[in-house]
């Protein structure tokens, strides 16, 4: 088993499949009388969040607690970081406290990689800058597999701000490892030139959403980050919604079995209309529940044995 989870590219097909299979067993715990397993008793997991996040932090916290690990939440606001402590000094502090795993979210791409060199425990990337968010890709893959029964050969369309999206990057890496075909769709300003070739061969780029919908098995909408709207990547919110937003009419052009995904939080009316977000094809709420199972699987597989 790998020691850290920093990138979707850290996982080969066997390891990724093992995580998804383990997550399926972890999911069964949610339906039990006692929603807790003793596997990580006595282990300490630190949630080190330099960026605001609700669902990812809570999801990791729930996952660690269901495995009986002790959880320490560390957010940059109101901590020593606000007083100017460097990432390295924070890492050494966590090291001294005996953290077995550090779950880190940071605005700087590559921060988890640096952290992994400073601590003895496992480092799990919970989103770094515009780089990667591998557990989101795992939970997306898990959701696709449980809804559609397979990953190999699926046609996955990822729509939106690919340029700034760590979710898109990790998904392209992981999904192509698992045999799905990814097509990136968005305004040319938000899709870096050559990104497809740089991330994974076989990934397509298309600037026309309507052209790819009829053959999609999965349509994954990315959040349009409000701060980007002022950066002239596209003319206006209305124009973005008209060309790249998923509304009911577009949804009905998708094949009958196709699903709609969104990593959240959504901008209803912008990249996705309420009609689509609340339809039976939408897996948005399932993705949240699956996130806990997948993160339990990752924590167990990284910390459950003597893999150090």
């Amino acid at each position, binding site marked *: *088993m790998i020691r850290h989870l920093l990138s979707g590219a850290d996982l080969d097909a066997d390891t990724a499949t*093992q995580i998804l*299979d*383990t997550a399926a*067993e*972890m999911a*069964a715990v949610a339906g*039990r*009388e*006692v929603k*807790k*397993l*003793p*596997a990580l008793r006595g282990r300490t997991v630190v949630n080190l969040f330099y960026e605001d996040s609700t669902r990812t932090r809570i999801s990791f916290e729930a996952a660690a607690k269901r495995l009986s690990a002790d959880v320490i939440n560390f957010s940059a606001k109101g901590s020593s970081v606000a007083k100017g402590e460097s990432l390295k000094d924070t890492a050494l502090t966590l090291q001294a406290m005996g953290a077995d795993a550090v779950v880190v979210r940071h605005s700087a791409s590559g921060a988890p990689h640096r952290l992994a060199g400073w601590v003895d425990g496992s480092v799990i990337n919970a989103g770094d800058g515009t780089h990667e968010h591998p557990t989101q890709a795992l939970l997306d893959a898990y959701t696709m597999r449980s809804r559609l029964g397979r990953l190999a050969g699926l046609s996955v369309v990822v729509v939106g701000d690919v340029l700034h999206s760590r979710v898109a990057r990790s998904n392209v890496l992981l999904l192509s490892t698992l045999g799905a075909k990814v097509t990136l769709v968005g305004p040319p300003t938000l899709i870096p030139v050559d990104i497809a070739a740089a991330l994974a061969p076989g990934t397509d780029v298309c600037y026309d959403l309507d052209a790819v919908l009829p053959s999609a098995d999965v349509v994954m909408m990315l959040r349009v980050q409000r701060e980007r709207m002022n950066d002239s990547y596209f003319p206006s919110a209305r124009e973005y919604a008209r060309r790249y937003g998923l509304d009911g009419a577009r949804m009905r052009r998708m094949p009958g079995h196709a699903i709609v995904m969104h990593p959240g939080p959504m901008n209803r009316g912008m990249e996705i209309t309420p009609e689509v977000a609340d339809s039976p094809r939408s897996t948005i709420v399932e993705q949240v529940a699956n996130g806990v199972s997948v993160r339990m699987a990752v924590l*167990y*597989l*990284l910390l*459950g*044995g*003597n*893999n150090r």
Partner: protein
Amino acid sequence: MAQPSAARSSPPRQPSVKVILTSADVQRVVDRIAHQILEKTQGAADTVLLGIPTRGAPLARRLAARISAFEGVAVPVGVLDITLYRDDLRRHATRAVGPTQLPPGGIDGRRVILVDDVLFSGRTVRAALDALGDLGRPASVQLAVLVDRGHRQLPIRADYVGKNIPTALAENVKVTLGETDGADEVRLYAGVASS
């Protein structure tokens, strides 16, 4: 590494193997345990068989099939994976988690019979009891094993034993079953230093 076949070096130690139960013996033993369960539980009403992977699972299915053949009682069968409850998790590389499947009626208020192939230290059964506690509250829990080889490290005993095999600690008991290994057999391997 393969040693050169020099006549000088001592011949490789062949671990001596003894067949304890043949395929026919295994069938007879399973039949007997099925009868004992029927006798001791007065007809196996309100009873659930839970097999502990790997080989406890097919054994539990066989017991249920025999009980059904003898008295026409359908005993629900499930699988109880105990990986996450083991007490030696962090002494080994991470172990793969297997499926746990409870029968539709669950285990609350039922008599649960745990089924495993070999009873040795008792630690697997301890883990299974902990797992059961998190899954529900059975009325009672019993244990059926194909082979009891002794050397308990915990105060645990089986209610149904196919065969008691006195062993030395260094010896190894290996159960194979048609479902998992292609053929039914129980073998005793003489003490080879574990590698």
